[in-house]
C-alpha cells in the first residue's frame, strides 16, 4: 500500500515536476529575476521569488502547454499585482501561440495586502482566459488541494473550459469562516470539516458537473486527466449557453430547498453515502453512476 507523494501535499514546484515530461519545464520570470511584491515588503511581510505563482512552458505527453501553479503556502496563494499579471500574461501568451494553458489553482482569491490591484488582475486574467476560449485554445483548471479555489479564483476557475478535481480540492467563493459569520455557527460550523467538504469539496462538485474529472490524489492520475481534456474545448455558442442556463436552473430547482449535501449525493445517484465518502476518484464516480 505504499505510493508516491500525495499531490495535495506537494509544493507548486514539486507538482510541476511530477506532472510534466521530465526536463520539459521552462520557467518564465524565474526566481533569479527577483520580481517580488513591493506591497509585502512595505508591510514587513516576507516576500517570495515567484510571488506565489510558478509559470512557464512545459510538455505533457509530448504536447506543449503553458502551465501555472500557485503556491498555497505563500499568503494563501492569494493574487497580488505581480502574481496576477503573471497569470494574465501566461493566458495571453497561450492565446497568442495557440497552446493550451493549465493552471493548478491553490488560492483563497485576492491578496488583501495588495488591495484592489489583485482584484483587477483576476478580472484581467478572466478576460485573457476568454481570449483563449474564443480561439478554441483549451484552458484547464486543476483544483486538488485543501486551500482550493476560493473567492475570485473560484470564479476564475469556472471560466476555464474544464476543471480537474480530487476529493481534497475545494471550489467556492465564500470561505467557510465567512459563511459561518454570516449564517451563524448553528447553520454552518466552519470547524466541521466533513460539512465543509460536503459543501464545497471535489466530490460534490463532480456530482453536480462543476468538475469535469474526479481523480485520485496522485500526479500520474492528474496528468492523465489533463492529457485527456487537453484535446477538447468547451463550446461557447448561443445553444451552449442556453443549455447551461436550463441545466443550472434545474439544479437550483431540484436542490435549492435543501441544506443537506447528502440529498444532492443521493439525487445524483449515490446510494451508499458512507462507502462513497471513503471512496476516491474514479471509484467514487463509478458508485454515483451505478446508482443512476
Amino acid at each position, binding site marked *: *500500500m*505504499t*505510493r*508516491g*507523494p*500525495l499531490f495535495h*501535499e506537494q509544493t507548486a514546484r514539486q507538482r510541476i515536476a511530477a506532472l510534466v515530461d521530465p526536463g520539459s519545464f521552462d520557467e518564465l520570470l524565474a526566481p533569479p529575476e527577483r520580481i517580488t511584491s513591493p506591497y509585502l515588503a512595505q508591510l514587513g511581510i516576507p516576500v517570495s521569488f515567484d510571488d506565489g505563482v510558478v509559470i512557464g512552458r512545459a510538455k505533457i505527453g509530448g504536447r506543449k502547454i503553458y502551465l501555472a501553479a500557485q503556491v498555497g503556502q505563500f499568503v494563501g496563494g492569494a493574487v497580488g499585482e505581480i502574481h496576477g499579471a503573471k497569470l494574465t500574461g501566461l493566458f495571453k501568451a497561450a492565446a497568442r501561440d495557440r497552446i493550451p494553458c493549465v493552471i493548478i489553482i491553490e488560492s483563497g482569491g485576492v491578496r488583501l495586502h495588495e488591495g484592489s490591484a489583485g482584484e483587477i488582475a483576476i478580472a484581467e486574467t478572466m478576460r485573457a482566459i476568454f481570449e483563449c476560449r474564443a480561439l478554441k485554445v483549451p484552458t484547464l483548471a486543476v483544483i486538488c488541494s485543501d486551500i482550493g479555489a476560493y473567492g475570485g479564483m473560484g470564479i476564475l476557475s469556472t471560466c476555464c473550459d474544464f476543471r480537474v478535481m480530487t*476529493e481534497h480540492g475545494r471550489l467556492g467563493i465564500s470561505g467557510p469562516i465567512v459563511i459561518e459569520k454570516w449564517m451563524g455557527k448553528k447553520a454552518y460550523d466552519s*470547524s*466541521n*470539516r*466533513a460539512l*465543509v*467538504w460536503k459543501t464545497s469539496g471535489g466530490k460534490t462538485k463532480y456530482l453536480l458537473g462543476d468538475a469535469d474529472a474526479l481523480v485520485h490524489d496522485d500526479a500520474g492520475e492528474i496528468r492523465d486527466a489533463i492529457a485527456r481534456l487537453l484535446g477538447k474545448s468547451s463550446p461557447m455558442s448561443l445553444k451552449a449557453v442556453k443549455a447551461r442556463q436550463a441545466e443550472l436552473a434545474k439544479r437550483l430547482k431540484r436542490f435549492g430547498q435543501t441544506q443537506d449535501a447528502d440529498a444532492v449525493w443521493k439525487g445524483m445517484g449515490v446510494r451508499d453515502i458512507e462507502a462513497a*465518502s*471513503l471512496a476516491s476518484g474514479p471509484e467514487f464516480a463509478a458508485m454515483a453512476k451505478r446508482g443512476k
Partner: protein
Amino acid sequence: MATAKSALRRENKAKRLQRVGKLARGKFVSAANVAQVLKRVIEPGDILCLEGDNQKQADFLANQLASLDRKDLSDIHLVMSCITLPAHIQLFKKGMIRQVDFCYAGPQGTAVADLVKAKKFPVGAIHTYNELYARYYIDLTPRVALIAAAQADRKGNLFLAANTEETPAIVEPTAFSDGIVFAQVNEIVDKLPRIDIPADQVDLVVQAPYPMHLQALFTRDPAAITDVQVLMAMVALRGIYEKYGVQSLNHGVGFNTAAIELLLPTYGERLGLKGKICKYWMVNPLPTMIPAIESGWVESVFAVGGEVGMERYTAAHSDVFFTGRDGSFHSNRAMGQLAGHYGIDMFIGASLQIDINGNSSTVSKNRITGFGGAPNMGCQPAGRRHPTESWLKVGAEANPGPGSPPGRKLVVQMVETFQSGRVPTFVEELDAQDPSIRKALHGVAPVMIYGDDVTHVVTEEGIANLAACRSIAERQAAIRSVAGYTPVGLKRRKRDTEELRRRGIVQFPEDVGVSPREASRSLLAAQDIKGLVRWSNGLYDPPPQFVDW
C-alpha cells in the same frame, strides 16, 4: 469467621450510608440527589479519591462535588491521578482541599501554576501513576472514591468497557478498607456484557445525565507528521530498533513515535525488519498502529486505556488486543504500567525540555503538568532479572560495574531540538528547577525522567548514546552534539563531537545509513486519518473532529 476486635472504620462507613437514607433506593441514587448524598457521605479530614486520568473522567461526580460550598465540604485530602477538569480547579478555589496528591495536570497545567502562585495548591507530591496507586494501599487509602463506569446492572455490578483504566486500582483499596465506592455510570441495564467490578465492592450508583468524559488522547492525524519527524523516525528505527533488536516496547503519544508506527509497513519492511522487531506492545490502541497490525507486524498489545473510535477495530482483532469474554477491548492502567516497567525492552517518548544532564520535564513556571505514565516505563527497573537480547546489548555498552545489573532497558527520548515557536528543547537547566516550584513541592523538582535512566537521545541531528558515556562530562558533550542550533547545541566543541562520533556514542543520520533526502512523508503507510480508516477496512471510527469526509 473471626470477629474484629475493633471495627471503627466499618461502623463509620455504616453511619455514613445511614445518613444517605431515603436519598438512595438501595444502592441507586438519582442524579438530582447526588450533591446531597456527597455532602452526607464525605466527612472533613477524609482522603477522597476522584477517578480521572488523562482519558477517562468521573466528570459528573466531579461537577457535583464542585457545586458544593465550603461549609458542606472542607479539609479534604484529595488523591487523584489527573487534574484535568475545570471542576477540579474549583475545589481548590473554594478552599475545600487541605492537601492534594496527584500525578498529572495536563489541560489544567496553567490553572495549577496559577494556584501555586496564589498559594492555593497545598500539594503533597507529584507522583508517577503506579507510585500513587501503590500509596492507595499504604498511606493514602481513600475513605470515599468517586469512580466512573460504562454500565451498571440492577445489583450494582459494573462494566467498564474499553476504558477500564485505573478503576480497579482505586476500587480495591477503598472497598477492602471499609471505604465508600460511589460510581457514576452512563446507563443502567438488566444484563452486563461482562462484569469488571463486582457489586460487592460498590456502595452507590448514579446514572449520570451525560456520558463520562473520554478524551481522544492518542489520536494522531498522520497529516500533521512532518518530513523532519519522518527523518527522526528513520534514524530511530535504524540506530535503535534495528541495532538492538527491540521486541517489546512502549510508545509515547507524540507524532515522532506515530511516524515510527507508520514507517513499519513501508521503510521497516524494506529493511527486512518484520518479525524481528516491535512484536509485543504495551501501548493504548493507537490508530496509527493500524497499518502495522494489518501488515502482520504485531503479536500483542496490552493497554492502560482505550481510545475513542477503536472499539470495533480492537474487538475485531482479539488475537492482538486483550478482550473480554464479550469480545470487547480491555485495559488496565496499573497492570499496564507494571508491564511497561518490567516487561519491555524499550520505552520511547518525547519531552518539552531536556537539560544537559539528560533530565527531562514538561513543567514550566507557568504550566505545572507533572507526569503521565512516562516515568514508570521510562526508567531502569532495578527489580528486573530476565534477560533479552536488547537488554543485554545495552547493558554491555553501559559497561556495568560489579554491583550493577548486566542489562539495561532502552529509555529513549526523541525530540526535535526546537519546539514550536522556536523554543529550544535543550536547556542548561530545567524550568522545573525553579526555586518557587521546588519549594511548593517540598524540595523535589518535578523531573519526568532522570538523565541517569535515559540511554539514548534522538533528535533530527542524530543519536546520542548516553548509556555508553563514561562520565557526566561525556554525557553533556554527547547531548550538546545532537542539540543542533539551540544555545545548548551552539556551545558544543567540534573536537568533542568528532571524538564521540568516532566512538559511536554520537551518530549522525548518515552514520546509521539514513539519507536525510529520503525522509519524506510519502514513506508513511497512511498520510491522513482517512488512510487509517481505509487500512482498517472501515473498522476504525475516528472522532468527528478528525473526519473531513
